[in-house]
């Protein structure tokens, strides 16, 4: 798909269309591997085949639509999106490696604030820590919901 695009070809629509085809293909493969059969009427695979066809149809619609005029999404601040992604990634990593909810959420808070243009790292770090600790105490102690534990959480 690195070939030069035709004039008026809307690349995102094309990509979404191809993604829909890929999804349809996966679903079809999954359905054809199903073992359990129904005695009467439709089995569990029928809905999968239907959705696969539906997705493929929508994919075809996108391929057609890609050659028509499209709205452009306008300017995008990809750096900011990257900061939010980094924040979400840190929370996932924190839970994955057992660092706990408070550390992960504080990082998420700091990086998201950075995405929206804040540069006061220390202040945000403190605020995020207070917020995360507050939420942890409220939910773990008061509502007895179990949030993931780490070294910081064990202090309480």
């Amino acid at each position, binding site marked *: 798909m690195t070939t030069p695009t035709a004039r008026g070809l809307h690349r995102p629509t094309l990509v*979404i269309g191809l993604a*829909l085809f890929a*999804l349809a293909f996966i*679903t079809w493969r*999954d*359905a054809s591997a199903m*073992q*359990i059969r*129904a*005695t*009467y*009427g*439709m*089995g*569990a695979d*029928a*809905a*999968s085949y239907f*959705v696969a066809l*539906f*997705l493929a149809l*929508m994919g075809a*619609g996108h391929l057609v639509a890609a050659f028509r005029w499209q*709205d452009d*999404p*306008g*300017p*995008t*601040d*990809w750096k*900011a*999106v990257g*900061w*939010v992604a980094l924040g*979400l990634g840190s*929370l*996932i990593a924190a*839970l*994955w490696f057992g660092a706990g*909810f408070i550390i992960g*959420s504080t990082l*998420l*808070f700091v990086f*998201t*604030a*950075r*995405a*929206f*243009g*804040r540069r006061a790292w220390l202040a*945000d770090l403190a*605020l*995020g820590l207070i*917020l995360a600790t507050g*939420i942890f105490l409220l*939910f773990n102690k008061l*509502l007895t*919901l*179990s*949030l993931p534990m780490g070294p910081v959480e064990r202090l309480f």
Partner: protein
Amino acid sequence: MESLTFLMQGFGTALDPMNLAFAAIGVLLGTAVGVLPGIGPALTVALLLPITFKLDPGGSLIMFAGIYYGGMYGGSTTAILLNTPGESASVVTALEGNQMARRGRGGPALATAAIGSFVATLIATMGLAFFAPLLVKVAIQFGPWDYFGLMLIAFVTVSATFGSSPLRGLTSLAIGLWLGLIGIDQLTGQARLAFGVPNLLDGVEVTTLAVGLFAIGEALHVASRHLFNDEKPIAIKGSIWMSRQDWKRSWKPWLRGTAIGFPIGALPAGGAEIPTFLSYTTERKLAEKPEEFGQGAIEGVAGPEAANNASAAGTLVPLLTLGLPTSATAAVMLAGFQQYNLQPGPLLFVQHPALVWGLVASLFIANVMLLVLNLPLVGLWVRLLKIPLPWLYAGILVFACMGTIAANPSVVELMMLVAFGVLGFIMRRYDYPIAPVVVGLILGPMADSALRRSLQMSLGDPMVLLQHPGSAIMIAIAAVALLAPFVFKGLARFRHDED
């Protein structure tokens, strides 16, 4: 009239001091979260669901009703003062409401929205109490084929008929249906699209999907844009109260908006934006000074806001009596019921009458509380709008992730949340509607099993769907609703910029 007795008993439950406190907390929390920019009622309910996890069903459903109505109310405040409607249903409110605020009439705009919501919700909730038992009597005789027909109508109207582009709406629906396939099939135990991941066997959680699409998707989208547009909340100048003339210009639009909103919300047709647009155009046609529209006409706030709230209460009719969610908010509400192992539908009225009528009664109470608590507190809510954007979205993300991990403590669930966030970002960026995904996820498996039950009962004969007049008519309606936008598109060539 037995429903009246039940309703009175419901008030007995709801007026218990503890339950009144739950309702008040729900209303305040719902308004506080709903008022935050970019957070509509669906997300408000989804974000606050974890708070109600550990309460008893009665109390938390009552709190839930408060959150729902509070979120609706908060959404209109944001639309008027910040011009960032949290959901498509407040787009029209933002049109005139924001113009009024710019001209220093923010107070009356908020007041007419609040009182209009109160009037509309009051009438619509009465409608709910009156029609729900009647519908239950009909619905109890419904066969699976009738449910299948109803769901087809809901699918089509939510995704194709009323959206800006049928292709994008149907694509959203297809993605929702695809997500609904994931997990173990209820009838046969066959795993679908689980790829051997244990977390996927239980299927996709509605709240995870809703929070991912709405909260994370919105945060990513706003982050990608905020450099390029900067909306500041408009300070309320002058009197908050409506003048005598404002009242005179508002009361008819309130009633007309209610009359438009409730029936459309109560039909399994979804789409809260239709009644608001209908009400807006009606008011513009009937206005004494139509030239004021676009410059801050109070009728343009009063009517649509009433229509919006009436249709929101209306969507509770199919939700409670049939178990059919026809909007994203209703889908999240359904998830809320299911967390207490309550399945809305005709049987709920028979098996748990105290609970249902307690809920309906607390809707009335939440509505009154909203009016009493929120009109004087409007200054406080406006201050919430001044939270700096970086902290606001950082806080929203922390809270959104917390809710998901608290409900389902696993890293995989969090990864799914983030994946749905990316999906929501892409959909927002390229203008795909979000509600069909959530509705598809919930209704997809229900339609699947309704269809298969019908076929089991007919020993595999698909004609069963057409032999019953109810389902035959509903399938015909769904087919017409699906084809209508394409036919009209062919007739009206000027809409060539679609898709």
